[in-house]
């Protein structure tokens, strides 16, 4: 096990290096310029723009810039944003709580909906409940979040006036009022993200349970006269969840990475909106940091998924 972990971690290093190199080169070659806005402003002399480019090291060759970035990254210096001249790590830290709150809650909601619905649907395949669940799951993941987001805004903010559609990270209220307002403003984004995710989880859970429920050992358990609940929870679900756990583990990086579209619609100051505004402003250090952290998380959670897999299914051994 220890050996296996070590080997996986060592393998992760070159893949992360490769990812960072590809990201960096792609960003450097992509069209656009962080000082584009200055270009159309007659009050800013071109020399200033040139000086800024030189100061931020944008005129160096790509490989040299990459090396600078890599060395600094290893020393814990993530660079600073061209747009706000603030250190990238503090920008990211500022936004992590909001993203964890909104996207994390959405994931929990998704699991809370998908697990019972998926299991119940699989227990009686092609029953009316299964048909309904399937239809909703199908609709759920066919509708893009930008559409459901706007739909909810139209219904709950514009027509009914119940919920705000601008998310505020620093609410002025205190005490219970604060809690109430934070919950109220998160309802719509959490619903949009959670239900979308729930739809696809439901289908996975259903098919995983269906695979297991017909196996001989389940029939054996039933014929032993075990309580149906016990059969489902102890014998079926436990085994059926192995692929689902992997799936959920691989979804975890997005909890940190944020949801770009939904964050934009509801103006949630999370990682996703940081990434998109950095991309629009050609703010390379921020884009690099966010995408690289995301890549690290994907590698990490892949490893965690593999380890969980072995733990849940003793037939798999680490070699």
């Amino acid at each position, binding site marked *: 096990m220890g050996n296996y972990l070590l080997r996986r971690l060592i393998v992760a290093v070159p893949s992360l290096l490769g990812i960072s190199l590809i990201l960096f080169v792609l960003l450097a070659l992509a069209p656009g310029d962080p*000082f584009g806005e200055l270009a159309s*402003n*007659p009050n*800013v002399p*071109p020399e*200033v723009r040139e*000086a800024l480019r030189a100061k931020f090291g944008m005129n160096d060759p790509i490989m040299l810039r990459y090396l600078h970035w890599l060395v600094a990254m290893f020393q814990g210096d993530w660079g600073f944003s061209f747009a706000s001249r603030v250190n990238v790590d503090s920008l990211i830290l500022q936004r992590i709580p909001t993203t964890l709150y909104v996207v994390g809650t959405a994931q929990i909601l998704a699991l809370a909906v998908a697990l019972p619905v998926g299991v119940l649907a699989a227990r009686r395949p092609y029953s009316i409940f299964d048909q309904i669940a399937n239809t909703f799951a199908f609709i759920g993941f066919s509708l893009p979040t930008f559409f459901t987001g706007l739909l909810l805004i139209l219904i709950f903010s514009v027509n009914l006036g119940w919920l705000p559609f*601008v998310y505020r990270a620093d609410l002025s209220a205190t005490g219970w009022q604060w809690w109430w307002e934070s919950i109220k403003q998160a309802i719509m984004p959490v619903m949009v993200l959670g239900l979308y995710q729930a739809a696809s989880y439901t289908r996975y859970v259903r098919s995983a349970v269906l695979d297991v429920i017909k196996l001989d050992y389940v029939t054996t358990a039933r014929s032993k006269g075990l309580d149906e609940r016990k059969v489902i929870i102890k014998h079926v679900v436990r085994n059926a969840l192995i692929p689902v756990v992997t799936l959920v583990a691989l979804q975890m990086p997005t909890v940190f990475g944020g949801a770009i579209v939904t964050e934009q619609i509801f103006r949630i*100051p999370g990682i996703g909106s940081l990434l998109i505004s950095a991309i629009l402003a050609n703010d390379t250090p921020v884009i690099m940091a966010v995408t690289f952290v995301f890549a690290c998380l994907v590698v990490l959670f892949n490893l965690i998924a593999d380890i969980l897999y072995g733990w849940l299914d003793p037939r798999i051994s680490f070699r």
Partner: protein
Amino acid sequence: MNERDLRHQIADVKAGRLSRREFVQRMIAVGLTAPMAGAMLAHSGIAVAAEAIPYKPTKAGGGGPLKLLLWQAPTLLNPHFAVGTKDQEACRLFYEPLAGWDKEGNLVPILAAEIPSPENGSLAADGLSVTWKLKQGVKWHDGKPFTADDVIFNWEYANNPETSAVSIGSYKNVKQIEKIDDYTVKLIFPQPTPFWADAFVASYGPIIPKHLFADYIGAKSREAPANLKPVGTGPYVFVDFKPGDTVAGKRNPDYHVPTQPYFDTVEIKGGGDAVSAARAVLQTGEYDYAYNLQVEDEILTKLEAGGQGKTELTLTGNIEYIGLNVTDPNVEVDGEKASLKTKHPLFSDPEVRKAINLLIDRTSVQKFIYGRAGVATPNFLNNPERFRSKNNTFEFSIEKANQILDAAGWKKGSSGVREKDGKPLKFVFQTSINGPRQKNQAIIKQAFQKAGIEVELKSVVASVFFSSDVANPDTYSHFYCDMQMYQTTMPQADPQFFMNQFVSTEAATKENKWQGRNICRWQNKEYDETYKLAQSELDPVKRAAHFIKLNDLVVRDNYVLPEINRLNAIGVKNGMSLYKSGWDNDLAFIASWYRAS
């Protein structure tokens, strides 16, 4: 309109035959700005006290929270680094300049005790210096007094190239600042400077405190803690800032105008898009104000039906125009496309340009695309609708265009496309990707087809089109295309910087890495000479006449075809009284905003 006409009109104002407002409108119609018109009147002895900014509350505070929505989020709070208007606006909550521009183009003192003028002796007759008297008793938010040293420091700070301040353009023209006493400074210019109200005024003018920034001048400028925690003299005291998201402030109890500000707290929320920002003010009333609503008028009208707020429009100098390439983008000379050594094969025929100008249906573009937020115009920097310049008019006539082209020998071929000497009248027309612009392209293409001109439409992603990337041939400044359309903005109240975009030496070429501002590469000797005269002319009336001539020279050569003068639309919640000028930032006078209950 020449110098004599101008003097006549000024005399009319003096005699009361022409209202001041009307005069300003007329000046705007011939391509000047309101501040220039104001300067002319002041110079001619028509001293007008700046219009009082409406403010009803009798004491400061008690207004509750003020919620502002900027769909582009502020990313920094140092006015010397403020790249876009989003950052400048946010800075104005905390920092203030010596003076700002009001609606009519008059200077309004903010941190200054009075506006310099020849009458009070603070404006040198030779144009080489100006003396500012500072308001006394103003305190920084941390209690330290605001003095002349702070003003001088800001000039040193911005002027140091190592600081890399974007405000350097406004300060590099000041040679020296003398401290007369603690509350008086004298700015000395290297040459006669007609536009002296640049440094320390309006958007690039806000003053930062010396005692907090003195250690961070030059290369260390990024490290100043106060970059993120501003300490200013403004109506609101800093509370919190999350770059790219929110800015929060609370009322400054020691504000130097004792009855202001009205609101107890202020919050700027950023991010999202313009349409939903409009919705949050006009339809649901969640916010009090939304800036720069670049949204189709049709949508704004629909949202206004929500009854929570309305759209307010302000005149600006921003112009959507079509440029014809003077050089040939399809021929390479010395490794450079669209070199100054070439001539465009089609547009070098003035009759073709004249016909193209007749084929732009400005009225329809205004009516069907921009609505209230745009005014069709033949001039490069104005708003003609009521006061259309006598000099320039526009017309849409396919018939006339056909006649002109026929007469010039461009005959229709078998395919219906005109040609002459084997050159078909066929070219490429590019712009940035943006809903209204693609509709605009379609309207133009339709008219061109009817006149036997074939045009291929091209649209480039805005972030590429407007970038200064030297290696990318699709940027607007490379202009490797025959015809292009975009908006050029006028961030300053004086047209001097604005009009340098047609000076010959500004032509965007490989040599200056396409950083020159003359994008069409239009060169004209008379223009260059007139521009030089305007640069150093001290008499505002003569100077204005020069600028009018500059405008006419460009427009009449038909390489640069102005189309729509775009207005600035903002969303305002019902009951809010907010004073806003088109010649300064939206939040320039935020201290005077209030809610009439």
